Structures are given as C-alpha cells and as structure tokens.
C-alpha cells in the first residue's frame, strides 16, 4: 500500500517528466501570447485595420444624373441628353502586354484599328486610329462619342480599351429656337453637361440634377467588381425638365419669315415676338440670325445671344400708343375729336415735322394715330401733361425688366423725370429718346389687347419633375394699365391703321388680313449717329406691332428691323398673322372694321 501511495505521492510531484511540464508551460505561454495578440488586433487595432482593408477593396463610382429635357408647349422635345461613351487606349501598355505574351504589338494594333473602324462606321478613319495607337502617348482618345452598345462591342473584343461615360446634348430642331434655348456642352473637368448660354445656362441648376454615388468592392489591382457587393450610397437625381411656352411650328415659321424678310431687305438685324393676348405667354421669339447648337464649334460667338430680349432700340411711332391710351383714359380726347394739326411744331429748341409735308390738317384723333402724325401726338401729349404721360410709361412696363425668364434681359431705358431737358417731351411721345426691347414693345400692345391688364410675359410654362409631375410656373400678377373701356377704344382706333379707303388710308394697309379685324401700329425711329451724337437721317429702326383679331384678341405680334431697305414691316405682319389664323383656327371676325374718317377736308 505504502509503496503505491509513495508512487502515487511522488508521481504528481516529480513523476511527470520535466519535458512534459516544460511543454505544458510553453504551450500555455503560446496560448497567452496568442490571446494577447488577439485582444490587441480585435480590440485596439480593429478599426484601423478594417479601414485599411476597406480602402483596398472599395471603389466609389459616380452614377451620372441625366440632364432634364426641354420641350415646347406641345411636348415636342427641343433639347435632350443622350448617353455616350468615349473610348481610350494606352498604346504603351498594349505594347508591353503584347510583348509579354510574345505577340506582335503592331499586328494587334492594326487588328484593333480595323475592328473599331468597322464597328463605328464611316466618319472614323482606320488610318487615324492606327496612327493614334502607334503614337508615344500614354493615353489616347480613340473616339469621343460612341453609343454605349458599340462601345461594349468593341470592349468585348479588346478589353484593354477603356470607355468613359459621356453625355451628349442633342437639339433635334437644330437652329429652331436656338437663341432662346442656348447651348449646353460636356465639361471634362466636372464630367457633366453644363449650360453655356441661354436657357440652358440660366436654368442649369434645375436641369442638371445631382449625380449619385455607388460603392462597390473590387479585387485588388483590377477593375472587376465583386458581384453582390454594390451599395448605392446616393441615388442620382435626374434633372427636372422644362416645358416652354413656345410653339415649335410657329417658332419655325416666324423665324423663317423674319429671316427671309430681313435678308430680302438687307436688314442689319431683326427680331420678332408673338405673345398670347391674354396670358402673355411667348409663343414665338425669333431673331434673323441664329446658330446650330449641335455644332457649337462652327457658331460665331456674336450669334449666341438673344437680341429679342437683350438688344433695346428706339421704338419710334409704336410708342404713340402710350399717349393715345393716356389721353383716352384721362378723358383728354375721344377718338372722334378733331385736331387742327399743323405741318410742323416748335417745342423748346427743336422743330418736329410729320413724315409727309402738309399744311394744317383737320385730323381726328383716330386719324392722328392712323396717319402717324408726330405733330398731332405731341399736341395731345402737351394737353395730357408730363406727369400723366410718365405714369402711363411706367404702367406700360417701359424701363423695367419683364423677368421673362431668359438671361441677359435688358430693361430698356427711359430718361428719369428729373433729368428731362426741354426737348425730351418732344421726343418721348413719338418714340425717340427712350429704348425698349421687342418683348417690352409687344407687352404694351398686350395690355391693350387684354382689356387694359398687362401681364408680364413668360417663356417657361412648367417644370417637369424627374418623376413626371408637372409644376406650372405661377402666373405673374397683372398690372392695370387702363380701364377695359379705354383698352377697347384704343384697339378700335388702331384698326384704322390698316384701313385702305381712298383718301383715308392708314400707314399699314398691307397688314390687313381678309376676314379679320386687325389693330396695328407702324414705327420708324431714327438711329443715333455716333459721329455727331445726333439722329441719323439714313439709318432707321423699322418697328411694327399688331393685334389679331382686334375684336376678340388672340395674339400680339411685335417686330423690329434694324435699318432695312424698306419702310414698313406690315407685309411681314400680314404673313405671320395669316399663319396664326390658320394654325390656331381663329374664327373670322363677324364684320370688317368699320370705316372711320381720318381727315376732314
């Protein structure tokens, strides 16, 4: 027993071989060391190591947002974006890779050039591609704008060609409404399409949208995306679209008619605007010269603007509507009041004459307007008084921007009341000494057409949100210019301008349109001669404003020609009015304009 006990007693104490104890200690120490390291890695360095790993692995990709589409009032697209790819190659790398597999780099490059030229078609030349591939550059651009499908086809055959996302802005109408739309182009630095001029620039923030971000995991050293590892951090927000008040067909027709007329009479410039009589929406806004936004490189920089809103001019006799409206409104005169109008009038230091030499005539007030007698209008203005005249100028919106929604809009210029000289009041009523844009000019007549309520014109009808909801731009508040009766009276007076009765002819008989009552006003304004600082006798602005039809107005047309070899824009108005009547199926006026007496013997 004791032997066993002794054995038993000695076994635990010294019976175990020393190496076993040592082994046990070593293992325990190893375990402790591993445990400590585990704690250190998991506890202390965990965040840093995870971050490093994530860094190696994650790639942030930008999800491009597509730019909004601009359409006309009928939904016809005027500007839209299309996705494209740009193809790049790295010639040196291709050479190195080919040499690594002991293939002929040049043969490979030739095969590449041939295949790319085959896929992309005629404009791309195989020789040019080959010379690019053979060049010593690090990276070469093979093709700037390629449809994504073709880019994929090429990349399937040649994975070493990289494709970069691009967006092209297309303008299907070409020059149609280009002055209004402006142009947007691809910016390589921002990797986005941005507006350059016009509405594309003015409303860029709305149209551009916001790019999204996508985080993917890629294998170290390659671009291969690990499937299932995509996380979209932020979805792209596409740009909102814009619906304009323009009517493409009318815009095209007006632009063409205006361009033809301006070219025929060698005008230095021309602008025209068509407004809806009641809502003042801009149905058409055209200039004689325009550009093709699809081909920006070929456009002359001076043509990129929009003179219809940015180039003011002196209106001439179309401004006589201000005096007429104020005189009727304030009861100074009635349409039938007979005025004794001399052939010339001396005011302060200037003598004002009419366009035709005459002695003292007995003109009705209607006749003064229809014949466009400067002297008659000045006599009326003197009876009206400066204050009431200035008040009407302001109400008509002159000297103030219309805020139509286009960039570069000019407010025109009206000399402030306290700076008037003696002859200012001899100039303003007949439309010299102040300036306005064709939009402001049309706006005056829109007030007369809309029973005295002037609505500031607008060009953007609605915003279309990315999800398709349409948000109409709020209607601007109207400005009460004259009472409805006054507006109707003035409109009726202006019908006489197109009257074509022997001995009682107005200045714009060519503007008459069979079946419709037309109210209109012609204008001729002397341009300033910079050499002498005085008014030129050979350079004129020819202006015109018309309301169709006068009895139930639908449209207002304003036209300006810069120094044409013709004295009137009435035939142009006739053509535009005829087109309007047909396009919008305007019902004929119930009766022709009554004949009024302009001159009494």
């Amino acid at each position, binding site marked *: 027993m004791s032997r066993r006990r002794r054995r*038993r007693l000695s076994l635990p104490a010294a019976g175990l071989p020393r190496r076993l104890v040592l082994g046990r200690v070593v293992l325990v120490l190893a375990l402790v060391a591993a445990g400590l390291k585990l704690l250190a890695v998991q506890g202390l360095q965990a965040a840093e190591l995870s971050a490093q790993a994530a860094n190696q692995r994650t790639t942030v990709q930008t999800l491009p947002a597509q730019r909004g589409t601009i359409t006309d009032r009928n939904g*016809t697209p005027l500007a839209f974006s299309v996705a494209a790819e740009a193809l790049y190659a790295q010639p040196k790398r291709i050479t190195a890779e080919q040499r690594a597999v002991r293939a002929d780099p040049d043969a490979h490059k030739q095969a590449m050039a041939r295949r790319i030229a085959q896929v992309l078609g005629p404009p791309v030349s195989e020789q040019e591609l080959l010379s690019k591939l053979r060049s010593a550059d690090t990276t070469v651009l093979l093709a700037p704008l390629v449809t994504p499908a073709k880019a994929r086809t090429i990349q399937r055959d040649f994975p070493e060609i990289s494709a970069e996302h691009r967006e092209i802005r297309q303008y299907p109408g070409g020059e149609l409404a280009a002055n209004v739309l402006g142009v947007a182009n691809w910016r390589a630095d921002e990797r986005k399409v941005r507006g350059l001029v016009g509405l594309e620039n003015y409303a860029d923030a709305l149209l551009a949208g916001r790019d999204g971000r996508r985080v993917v995991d890629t294998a170290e050293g390659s671009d291969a995306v690990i499937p299932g590892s995509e996380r979209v951090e932020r979805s792209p927000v596409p740009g909102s679209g814009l619906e304009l008040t323009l009517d493409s067909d009318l815009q095209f027709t007006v632009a063409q008619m205006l361009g033809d007329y301006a070219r025929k009479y060698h005008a230095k410039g021309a602008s025209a605007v068509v407004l809806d009589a009641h809502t003042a929406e801009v149905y058409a806004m055209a200039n004689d010269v325009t550009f093709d936004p699809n081909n920006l490189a070929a456009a002359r920089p001076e043509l990129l603007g929009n003179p219809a809103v940015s180039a003011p001019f002196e209106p001439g006799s179309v401004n006589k509507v201000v005096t007429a409206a104020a005189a009727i409104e304030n009861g100074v005169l009635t349409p039938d009041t007979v005025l004794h109008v001399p052939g010339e009038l001396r005011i302060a230091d200037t003598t004002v004459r009419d366009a035709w030499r005459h002695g003292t005539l007995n003109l009705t007030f209607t006749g003064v307007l229809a014949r*466009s007698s400067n002297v008659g209008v000045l006599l009326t203005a003197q009876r009206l008084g400066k204050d009431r005249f200035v008040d009407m100028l302001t109400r008509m919106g002159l000297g103030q921007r219309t805020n139509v929604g286009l960039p570069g809009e000019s407010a025109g210029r009206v000399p402030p009341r306290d700076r008037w000289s003696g002859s200012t009041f001899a100039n303003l009523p007949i439309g010299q000494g102040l300036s306005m844009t064709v939009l402001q000019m049309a706006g005056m007549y829109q007030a007369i057409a809309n029973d005295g309520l002037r609505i500031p014109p607008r060009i953007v009808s609605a915003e279309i949100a990315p999800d398709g909801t349409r948000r109409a731009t709020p209607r601007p508040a109207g400005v009460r210019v004259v009472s409805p009766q006054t507006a109707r009276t003035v409109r009726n007076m202006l019908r006489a301008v197109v009257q074509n009765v022997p001995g009682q002819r107005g200045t714009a008989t060519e503007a008459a*349109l*069979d079946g419709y009552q037309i109210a209109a006003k012609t*204008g001729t304004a002397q341009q300033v001669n910079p050499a002498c600082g005085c008014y030129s006798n050979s350079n004129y602005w020819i202006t015109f404003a018309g309301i169709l039809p006068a009895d139930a107005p639908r449209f207002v047309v304003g036209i300006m020609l810069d120094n044409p070899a013709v*004295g009137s824009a009435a035939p142009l108005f006739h053509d535009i009015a005829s087109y309007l009547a047909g396009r919008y199926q305007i019902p004929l006026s119930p009766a022709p304009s009554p004949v009024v007496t302009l001159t009494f013997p």
Partner: protein
Amino acid sequence: MTAPTRTVTPMRGRTAAPMRGSTAVPTGRRDTRAGRGRSPAVARAYARRAQRTGARSAGPEVGPENPDAGRMPFVLVVMVLLGVALVSTLWLSTAAAADSYHLQGARKVARNLAERSENLSREVATLETAPELARRARELGMVPAGNPARLIVRPDGTVVLVGHPRRATAPAPPPAAAPAPAARPAPSAPPRAAAPGGRT
C-alpha cells in the same frame, strides 16, 4: 489533454476517493474498472463505501456510464445542427451569388432595351421637328401655302367667300451666303410712309 488528470470526479466531491488505491487510475479512464468484473474484495469495498456515503454512492456507480451514454444523443444533435447550419449557410450564400448574377443579366437586358428605346425616340424626335418636316416637304415639291381665302358657311347653308384665292408660289430659294451689310444699297429715296420729322 495528454497530461495525466488528477481530478477524477469534479461533480461528486469525492475528493478523498481518488487517493484510494482502487480508484487512482493514472490514465483517467475510470470506466475500465466500473461495472466490469470486479473482484469480490473490490466489490465489498464499494459496498462499504456505499453504505457510508448513503444513497449518493449508488449514483456515482451509475454515473460514470450514464453521462457518456446520455451525451451521445446530445452530441449527435449538436453535430446535426452544425451540419444543417453549414449546409444552409452555403446554400443561402450560393443562392445570393446566383441571384446577383441573375440580376446582372436582367439589368443587361433592361439596359439594352432602354438604349434601343432611347435611340428610337431620338430618331423620331429629330424627324418630327418643324425644320425637318419643312425640308422633307420641300423635297417632295410642296410649297408653303401663303394666305388662303376663307369660306364661311352660313346657318342656312350658303357659302360666302372671304378673301382672294391665289395659287401658291414657290418662294425664292435663300441665297447661299447672307449678304454682308456693306453690300446694302443706299436707299435712293427716303423710306416710304414713316420717316419722323427732322431735327434742327
């Protein structure tokens, strides 16, 4: 563990027992002796001890064999559970990966269709713009109509002609290049109808 175990019964507090001769088994396999061919002396020693420790002694004798037999199903259950977990994890992750490939394929199809649709609508948009229609109409030999005469149909059925019907004439083709402003001929007579009065 290859080190010799000394603690034989952690649960039953038989601290003194292992020191006794019969139960001090160096290899720790207690069950070699338990319940298998004991010598009478050994059996008597067991019985005496059983009496001393009371009912509890019956347990330990049965104990050594029961935990092992009772643990078998438990171990099996755990193994089965682990197996199931492993298989299901593998299956789920394979399914997710497979789904992501399906998703890629579906996305590709959707993208191709969207591109085609975009191409087509772009073509249509270009073809139906006013300038394009005008050009094609011109090519067909059509001319802009000009100002038409209009017909009014009265309620009693009579038709009234308003205006003068005229044959449409083809407009003169625009000049190839816009004439420079300097080429404008100086007007020989003042523009008709509306020159304002002169200034002195």
